[in-house]
C-alpha cells in the first residue's frame, strides 16, 4: 500500500472507530464498509473534514449481491466512489440496505448535490429507496415501467414487449415472446484450473 493510502487508512480508523468496518485494500484501492445507520454521518465527515476532503462524489451505484459467489451478507449494496481533489485520493464506500423486500437507505443529496441522479438511477434499476431524496422518480426506464431491471432475478429479455397496433392506432404492450438464450454459459473455474502440476 502506498504511504498516502496508508495514512488515509489510519485517519479513517481514527476518525470512525467503531462506525466503519476494517478498511480493505486491494488492487491499489481502499474500500470501507459503513452501516446504514452511520452512513450519512460518515459521508458528511468524509466530504467536509479537512483530513479527508472528498469533494467529488464520482459515482454511486447499486449492486445486487444475491447470486454472488457464496455470498452470505445482505442483498443490496450502494457503492460510492469518492475523489478528493485536495489530497488526490480515491475511496470506495459500500453500505448495505437492511431490508431485502423494501431496501431503504438515507440520501446523501444534502452532502453532494450530484448524488441526485445517481440515487434516482439506483432506485430505478435496483429499487433501493433513498430516504430524504426530494424527487425520487424513475430515470432511465420507460414511463410506467414495472420492476427493477438490474436485479439479478429480472430476466435479460424483460417481461413486456411493445409494437404498433394498426387497428388501435397506438403502441401496445404484450408479454415477451422471445426466449432468453445463452450462447456462452457462465463458468467459474476452480482456483488451480489450467495451471498444470495438479495431476
Amino acid at each position, binding site marked *: 500500500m502506498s504511504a498516502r493510502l496508508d495514512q488515509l487508512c489510519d485517519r479513517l480508523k481514527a476518525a470512525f472507530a467503531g462506525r466503519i468496518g476494517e478498511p480493505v485494500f486491494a488492487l491499489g484501492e481502499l474500500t470501507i464498509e459503513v452501516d446504514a445507520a452511520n452512513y450519512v454521518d460518515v459521508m458528511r465527515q468524509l466530504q467536509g473534514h479537512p483530513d479527508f476532503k472528498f469533494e467529488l462524489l464520482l459515482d454511486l451505484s447499486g449492486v445486487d449481491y444475491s447470486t454472488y459467489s457464496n455470498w452470505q451478507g445482505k442483498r443490496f449494496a450502494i457503492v460510492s466512489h469518492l475523489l478528493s481533489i485536495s489530497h488526490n485520493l480515491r475511496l470506495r464506500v459500500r453500505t448495505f440496505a437492511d431490508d431485502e423486500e423494501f431496501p431503504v437507505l438515507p440520501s446523501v443529496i444534502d452532502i*453532494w448535490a450530484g448524488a441526485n441522479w445517481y440515487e434516482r438511477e439506483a432506485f430505478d434499476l435496483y429499487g433501493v429507496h433513498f430516504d430524504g431524496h426530494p424527487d425520487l422518480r424513475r430515470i432511465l426506464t420507460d414511463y410506467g415501467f414495472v420492476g427493477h431491471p438490474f436485479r439479478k432475478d429480472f430476466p435479460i429479455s424483460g417481461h413486456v414487449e411493445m409494437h404498433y397496433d394498426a387497428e388501435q392506432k397506438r403502441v401496445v404492450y404484450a408479454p415477451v415472446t422471445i426466449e432468453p438464450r445463452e450462447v456462452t454459459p457462465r463458468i467459474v473455474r476452480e482456483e488451480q484450473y489450467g495451471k498444470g502440476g495438479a495431476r
Partner: protein
Amino acid sequence: MSDIKNYTLNFGPQHPAAHGVLRLILELDGEVIVRADPHIGLLHRGTEKLAETRTWIQSVPYMDRLDYVSMMCNEHAYCLAMEKMLGIEVPLRAQYIRVMYDEITRILNHLMAVGSHALDIGAMAVMLYAFRDREDLMDAYEAVSGARMHAAYYRPGGVYRDLPDRMPQYRQSKFKKGDALKQVNEDRQGSLLDFLEAFCGRFPKYVDEYEDLLTDNRIWKQRTVGVGVVEPERALNLGFSGPMLRGSGIEWDLRKKQPYEVYDRIDFDIPVGTNGDCYDRYLVRVEEMRQSTRIIKQCIDWLRVNPGPVITGNHKVAPPARENMKANMEELIHHFKLFTEGIHVPLGEAYAAIEHPKGEFGVYIVSDGANKPYRLKLRSPGFPHLAALDEIARGHMIADAVAIIGTMDLVFGDIDR
C-alpha cells in the same frame, strides 16, 4: 390583469439542438426558465446488464457504442479496469498507441463539441470545417481497425494489432480523378504515422481558423460569455469533471494527477478557465485540441523508432499468433479456450478511470471469478453534467438553454448507457 401562469414547453426528444434524444420539460415564466426537467433514458440499452450475460471480451464493442463520438476512450477505461484485475502488464508500444489514439479521439470529440455547439447557436460554418478534420481522423481509425467509428481496437492486454505500414488511398472514381485524386492521396503515400504527422502539421492552423470564426466573434461572445456560470465549489459539489470542471478554474486532469499509460513521460499542459461560463469552457476545449496535437506528435516520434509487441504474451487473455496456433498444440488449446469460454477475471472489484474528452469516464467492475462480469458500472461524465442542467439553466433565457446544452457536450449513448 388576468393571472399569467407559467408556460410549460416540451423540448425534444426530436430536436436538432437536443444532441440526440434529450427530452427537456421547460417551465417558463415569459422567456425565463423557471425549471428545467431533463427526461433521459430514451437511448437506454442496458449496456451494464447486457455485459453481465456476455463474456468479458464480447463487451468491448459495447463500449464503443456508449459515447459514440469518443469511442476508443471508452474501450480504454474498460480495458484498464480488466487489466487491473488480471494484473497484466501492457507492452510499452501498446501504451503509446493507446495514448496516441486517445488524443486522436479527444480531437474528434472536441471538434464535434465545438462544431455542434456553434451550430446550435447559429454559426454554421464551424461544423462543416470540423467535419473535414474529423474525416482525416476517422480515416486513421479505419486504417488501424477497419471501422471508422466503432473500432473495438483496444483489447485487454494491449491493442488488437500494430499500426499499418501503408495508409489506404482513394481510388479513381467519377468524382475523384486527375489532380483532385492526387491531392487527396498526397498525404497517404507513406505509413499511418506519416499521415498523422502531416495532419499534426496542418491541424494547428485549422484550429486558428476555428478561433478566427468564433473566439472574437461578437455574436458568439454575446451568446456564451457569462452564460451558464458554475462556481468552482458548486462544480465539485455537482460532480463535474473534465472541461466542465477546468472551465470553472479547477486544475484537475487525470492525465497529470493520476497518470495512466505513458502520460507521465509526455509533455503537455492543462488549460484552465477562470469564469466558469460557456465561453471559458469553449476556450478550454480549443486549447485541449492544440495540446492533443502536441501529444500525438510526441507519440509519433516514439512509435517510429521503437518497434515491439503491441499485446501481452499472456495467452489466457490475448490470443496467440495465428502462425503459432497452427503449429503448436498448446497455443491451439489456448486459442480454443479463449474464444469459446473467454477470459476469467479473478474474484474482486476494481475501478479504473481515464480522462475522457468529456470528463472522468470510470468503469467499476465486480467479478465473481467467472468468464463474465458480475456487475459492470459505467461512470459516464455526461450524466452529472446533465443532472446539473436544472440548476445552471434556472433564471436564464430560453435561448440560453441551447447554449448550455451545447457547452455540456452531451452525447446520449454515454448518458443513457
